[in-house]
């Protein structure tokens, strides 16, 4: 005996569209009347009616924001009054607060069937767990910057994200993971200066590793819930690192005062680069074998692999000229921006196009002020910069709209082209 497949909730407009489309398919002979009916039985009108999706997002955003604010308030309250609260009071507040929050999250999700609010309350629990780790440490005079505290928080958050398949908790986990790596990386470098270049070189390979793992989650393991946070976090970290690499001063500092890197730093660097590259290759091979290799996927694969090489080059083979480094990474940034827009165009991803255009504006403005600040009078630099921004904004907005319109038209030949902007 088979269990009936649950019906997928859709808003009324989508149901109406599906009914119209299935009629057309039947008329064209693509599907039979029975098949069309079978397709339609797979869907049902969502109870909240039109705007349900937006309302869901709004509720989630509000609930998550509320959870973060409550978490911050509790941390600030206990932090400010910690030494004046008796010891048993402190422990009671931490343990009862944590268990009660998780209990409320479970109750809201499981019993009241309000998953958006419930997830936010569980996220608050994960924040309170971090607060509890730091506050217990503080009670024994252990400083908040101690790397192991971040690691303990991370080890508590990641299993929770995987147990619940929760994107919000995973985002917190990725953030905690990056903070953990950051504080450990700082303790793995010594020698008087030049910490910025190694730090961002590590960030670059870590970003690539995260993005590759996110991609593998989607393409190989098919766990969609974890793919997006990992890919976005990876892309963000990678792009921040690449942006930092476009500044000349980064390399002059490194050449003047190189930091000594301890073996833990080198291990983290090689491991991130190795796992990142291996995962990229695995994803690409999986796509080739499944016959779904796309030009955009291959482009992203080559670009990310080249950036791993770039991070090695910047960290281990000093050329002696800061200009050569800056030049190469400025070209890499330009290629990354073009690649983002191109991949977004080819795959129909508006977010990638928007991100690429946004980065183009940031990069051009940065380079303008980088040069103009030294060459021009301040007032002239500002006036010309303002005019450049206005012209750039106008031109890039037109380009962005044209690309997005093409994407929408390609996906919906008869649909409204203005959607999704």
């Amino acid at each position, binding site marked *: 005996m088979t269990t009936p497949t649950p019906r997928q909730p859709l808003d009324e407009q989508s149901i109406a569209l599906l009914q119209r489309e299935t009629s057309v398919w039947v008329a064209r002979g693509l599907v039979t009347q029975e098949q069309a009916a079978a397709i339609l039985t797979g869907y049902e009108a969502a109870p909240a009616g039109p705007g349900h999706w937006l309302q869901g997002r709004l509720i989630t955003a509000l609930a998550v924001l509320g959870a973060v604010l409550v978490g911050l308030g509790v941390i600030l309250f206990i*932090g*400010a*009054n*910690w*030494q*004046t609260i008796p010891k048993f009071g402190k*422990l009671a507040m*931490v*343990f009862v607060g*944590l*268990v009660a929050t*998780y209990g409320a999250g*479970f109750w809201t*999700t*499981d019993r009241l069937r309000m998953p958006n609010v419930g997830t936010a309350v569980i996220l608050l*629990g994960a924040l309170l*767990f971090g607060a*509890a*780790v730091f506050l*217990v*440490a*503080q*009670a*024994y*005079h*252990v*400083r908040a910057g*101690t790397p192991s505290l971040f690691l*303990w928080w991370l080890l*508590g958050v990641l*299993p*929770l994200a*995987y*147990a*619940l*398949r929760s994107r919000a908790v995973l985002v917190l986990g990725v953030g905690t993971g990056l903070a953990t790596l950051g504080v450990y990386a700082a*303790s*793995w470098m*010594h*020698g008087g200066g030049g910490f910025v270049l190694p730090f961002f070189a590590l960030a670059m390979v870590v970003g690539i590793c995260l993005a590759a793992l996110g991609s593998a989650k989607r393409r190989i393991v098919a766990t969609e819930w974890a793919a997006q946070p990992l890919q976005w976090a990876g892309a963000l970290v990678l792009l921040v690192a690449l942006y930092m690499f476009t500044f000349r001063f980064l390399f002059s500092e490194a050449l003047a005062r190189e930091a*000594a890197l*301890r073996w833990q730093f080198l291990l983290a660097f090689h491991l991130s680069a190795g796992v990142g590259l291996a995962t990229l290759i695995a994803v690409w091979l999986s796509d080739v074998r499944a016959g779904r290799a796309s030009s955009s996927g291959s482009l992203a694969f080559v670009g990310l692999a080249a950036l791993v090489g770039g991070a090695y080059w910047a960290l281990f083979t000093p050329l002696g000229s800061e200009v050569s480094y800056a030049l190469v990474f400025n070209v890499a940034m330009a290629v990354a921006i073009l690649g983002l827009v191109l991949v977004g165009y080819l795959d129909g991803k508006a977010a990638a196009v928007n991100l690429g255009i946004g980065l183009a504006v940031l990069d051009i403005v940065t380079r303008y002020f980088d040069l103009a600040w030294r060459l021009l009078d301040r007032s002239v630099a500002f006036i010309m910069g303002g005019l450049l921004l206005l012209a750039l904004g106008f031109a890039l907005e037109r380009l962005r709209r044209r690309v997005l319109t093409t994407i929408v038209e390609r996906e919906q030949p008869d649909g409204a082209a203005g959607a999704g902007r």
Partner: protein
Amino acid sequence: MTGRTRIAFFAVVALQVLFLVGLVAYKETTLRSGREVVLQTLPVDPRDPFRGDFLILRYVISTLPTRAIESDGPFATGDVVYVRLQDRQPVADAVGVRRASAQDWDLFIRGTVTGVQDGGQVLEVQYGIESYFVPEGKGLVLQRARDIKAIVAVDASGRAILKRLIVDGKVFQTR
């Protein structure tokens, strides 16, 4: 939530609580059963003794002259070291430093080398007892103090926890 998700969720929550209980128990055990040592702190910088709500402490044993004491160098930044202490009333002094296990020493404290100077003849060491949290507004007394000593509990593996401060001869009250 499905049955498996529920079990996984409660298991993770239970582990988080157990971890916190374990952390408190470990620290309390060190505080109660660890050997008490009095360490002399160095005068704090009067311009910026506080960062947030904690006092930054430096000890006499934070700087170790390796030629003047028993040592098995060379040492590098980041090395975990064990520092042999001798209780010379009223405070304890460092009389040895080594990287290897120090179980044959009667009293020792575990630290991490944060700096090596003069070709390895002077070590900067941190012991994880360099912060002391105070309630808001309580820091003024410490800022004006002429002499601060720290009472530290050290467990059998050399890990230390700061118990309390003796400020100008009197135990500092946080409440």
